[in-house]
């Protein structure tokens, strides 16, 4: 018996349904809405899930690394800019030091994020806390594995190994390891895609080419090309 229908319709065009149980209807709508933005992860057996989780963990540089990239930024309207970015990341303890400079070597931003955010140097408009926070979050998304254990692990509709992490109350991050040493990271907030990273990895999980797309709240694209990548041993 269909709980949402009391009398069967005579004319589909004139159909009106009388809802028997509005609570169930609301619950159904909620469930549909909740799942609408996140891609499906096909379940796998425990052994394969465990293997997938390990693959996701090794897709990120481990320890302390320093990278220098050429950054090509594209904004709506066809506007573009080129910068050089130097990033030092440490997985344990978690620490990010980021410097952005012009081609001529002028430092526009120098910031450090460990247990607090420190701005060493910034030139307007890079001197806002909002910019610094956003930059550090984006760098963390690209170079460091999400915290904690995944809430799900399996295979995507396209057959890629994927791990899903909950990074906050309203945000999840999907880490997909694609064939040919490609890594894809997607961040969803309230099930809406806000960040997408596609990285070409070299041995040691060093990201050589990175395509970064920001969807919300502002749209922009970054293409990062590796100049140098070195592991630092203290």
């Amino acid at each position, binding site marked *: 018996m269909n709980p949402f229908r009391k009398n069967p319709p005579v004319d589909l065009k004139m159909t009106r349904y009388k809802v028997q149980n509005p609570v169930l209807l609301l619950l159904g709508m909620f469930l549909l809405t909740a799942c609408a933005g996140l891609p499906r992860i096909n379940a796998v057996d425990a052994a394969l899930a465990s293997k997938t989780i390990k693959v996701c963990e090794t897709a990120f540089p481990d320890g302390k690394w*320093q990278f*220098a990239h050429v950054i090509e930024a594209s904004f709506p309207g066809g506007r573009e800019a080129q910068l050089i970015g130097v990033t*030092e990341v440490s997985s344990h303890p978690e620490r990010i030091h980021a410097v952005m400079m012009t081609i001529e070597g002028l430092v526009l931003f120098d910031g450090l994020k460990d247990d607090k955010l420190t701005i060493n140097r910034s030139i307007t408009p890079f001197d806002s806390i909002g910019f610094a926070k956003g930059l550090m979050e984006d760098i963390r998304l690209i170079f460091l594995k999400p915290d904690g254990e995944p809430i799900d692990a399996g295979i995507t509709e396209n057959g890629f190994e994927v791990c899903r992490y909950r990074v906050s109350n309203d945000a999840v991050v999907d880490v997909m390891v694609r064939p040919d040493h490609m890594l894809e990271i997607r961040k969803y907030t309230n099930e809406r895609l806000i960040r997408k990273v596609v990285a070409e990895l070299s041995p040691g999980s060093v990201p050589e080419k990175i395509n970064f797309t920001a969807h919300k709240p502002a749209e922009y694209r970054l293409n990062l090309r590796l100049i140098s990548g070195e592991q630092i041993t203290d």
Partner: protein
Amino acid sequence: MGEWFEMVRNRLTRTLWSIWPAMCVVLFFITVPCAGSGDWDRIREKAIDIQTISARFVQEKHLEILIKPLISKGAFYFKAPGSLRWEYFSPIQSLLLMHDGKVRRFVGSESGFKEDAGPGLQAMEMVLQEITRWLKGEFTDNPDYHSSLEGDNKIVMVPRNKSFSKIIQKIEILLSDRPGVIETVTIYEGKTSFTKIRFQDVDINQGVADTLFESIP
């Protein structure tokens, strides 16, 4: 984000403009006899004979965070009265052209060179006026910098404007033992943050084709 982008462009333009007087001094001093005599007038007289300059450069970026300096390489060409080509080959391909009163900037990417036609270019045209003045040896007249000779072969330029000095603390120009050749230019942002440009293969008055200021890769 659009307003932010425009602010970035305008800020970079003003900053670049603050650097260019120093670069003019570089271009000027790259061709003059050793300034150890401390005679600004004699240096100014020698500037009249400069018609063309060509050189390669290696740029080292030093930062406390860097394990080793970040290296960029390029070349520049100058032809009197006001044609300039400042080109980076690596790690970024970038080209700045000034010719026939026009300024054009190009940035290289995987799909080739793209022209950057932002509002900053208008400021670059004004900088050209300044370049021409410097190349006549009138560098001490620039109100934005205090220039001094230290020892036999070092010129030090310090911004007078406090807002500029927060971006660039000072510029040091080291003259080579070879008369008329600059060895290095160092731009200090702080004690541990500086950019050093080393000039190589400097040719003076050897002829520079106009096509260098008209063509892009």
